[in-house]
């Protein structure tokens, strides 16, 4: 609650002083535990802003093709994504003011749906470390951590690292260890045989309808012409062939190597309950292990795949 008030106050000042033309933040949505993006242009708009575990959109996606001075009320992952975009010259860094605070994580609505077997949640109130769920004929209070996204449970950077001369940190955070082992599900999967892994991915992606939600919610996927949409040559066919689905996802993941901040938005967005993160997190983990990639953490540092070291591993090269 208190952080939310501080954020609102900071947004009010920013808009009053006209340091930015627009502030992108979350406001209350129309569904339980789902905040929705809001675009504040007047100090009075700040009243609507919320900062809580229902803020599940990665707002950095709205920085794509944006002109003018913008404020972004960002969780740490959104801030890092925005900094990756700035480093890649998507907008001048000085046009962006990040307003942030330590994040306790974001609710994965799919975990809620799974827990309640599809029964509709009419209202949900987050109180401290608990969520009180109300349905038509039930009410339950459950721990918040049970419903946080995997990316949040494994988050290594809940406290944002900002530029004090440009950005606004409304509250300092104390170091907090992730509650789930890093890339826990990926490591489990890595233990299986190649045949088992192949079966897993064929099964996961069998239901992919190619809606591109995973791509569109990702702030890092900002190419004006995605390889998947090119027609000359056509890389990704439209016949529904299972291989086309995998080509799309594998190549999209590879194009994000060293740039993905593991915000989890892709998995949250997928309407078919595909855990897209099983690919993107693997990529993030490998880039970190091999090349110390930590996108968006150090302004001015070259991206992992935009640089090299003499000592890069090459035992795989004949």
């Amino acid at each position, binding site marked *: 609650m208190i952080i939310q008030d501080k954020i609102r106050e900071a947004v009010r000042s920013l808009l009053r002083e006209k340091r930015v033309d627009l502030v992108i933040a979350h406001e209350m949505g129309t569904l339980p535990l789902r905040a929705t993006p809001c675009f504040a242009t007047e100090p009075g708009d700040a009243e609507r802003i919320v900062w809580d575990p229902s803020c599940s959109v990665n707002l950095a996606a709205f920085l794509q093709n944006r002109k003018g001075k913008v404020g972004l009320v960002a969780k740490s992952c959104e801030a890092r994504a925005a900094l990756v975009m700035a480093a890649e010259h998507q907008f001048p860094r000085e046009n962006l003011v990040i307003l942030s605070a330590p994040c306790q994580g974001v609710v994965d609505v799919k975990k809620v749906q799974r827990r309640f077997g599809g029964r509709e949640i009419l209202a949900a109130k987050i109180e401290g470390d608990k969520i009180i769920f109300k349905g038509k004929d039930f009410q339950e209070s459950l721990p918040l951590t049970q419903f946080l996204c995997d990316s949040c449970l494994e988050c290594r950077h809940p406290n944002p690292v900002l530029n004090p001369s440009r950005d606004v940190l409304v509250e300092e955070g104390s170091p907090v260890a992730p509650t789930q082992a890093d890339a826990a599900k990926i490591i489990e999967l890595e233990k299986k045989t190649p045949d088992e892994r192949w079966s897993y991915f064929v099964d996961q992606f069998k239901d992919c309808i190619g809606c591109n939600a995973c791509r569109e919610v990702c702030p890092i996927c900002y190419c004006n012409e995605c390889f998947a949409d090119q027609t000359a040559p056509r890389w990704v066919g439209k016949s529904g*062939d299972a291989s086309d689905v995998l*080509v799309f996802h594998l*190549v999209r993941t590879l194009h994000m190597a060293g740039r993905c901040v593991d915000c989890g938005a892709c998995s949250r967005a997928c309407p078919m309950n595909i855990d897209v993160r099983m690919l993107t997190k693997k990529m993030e983990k490998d880039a970190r292990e091999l090349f110390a990639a930590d996108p968006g953490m150090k302004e001015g540092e070259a991206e992992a*795949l935009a640089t090299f070291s003499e000592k890069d591993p090459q035992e795989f090269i*004949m």
Partner: protein
Amino acid sequence: MTGAADHTGEPVATAAWEPKIVAFLCNWCSYAGADLAGTSRIQYLPNIRVIRVPCSGRVDPLFIVKALQIGADGVLVAGCHPGDCHYISGNLLARRRFALLKRLLEYVGVEEGRVNFAWVSASEGGKFSDVVGEVVARVKALGPARRLIARTSKPEESS
């Protein structure tokens, strides 16, 4: 030639089956190395289909994945040795990319040995031949590619 198909229509190796390997060769080193093998009359296996690129750094992971999709049983990417790249650092950037690509493909279950990388210089005609031989052997042992292959566009098999 494609091998025979089993009762489900999936490709299987016959005694006569020869793998198709797509080889991305960088113009300045590995392509020249392949050329040298030719002019030196060093034999190398005919399974490779060469695609010449200016630099191994030109190779987008998309190409490799796509090659596997449209009928390659294996892929070879060969570039200049680190330090020798005509464009200074193209191969060094590629090295990072390929390391991650290899890991990701193996993670999803594409067999190890389908996608291969090598440094071959313009003077290494012999090495080129050896590399090709090694890659063909690896892919032959794996059999025809079954994972990631396009099926819909193929003519329907009469069963």
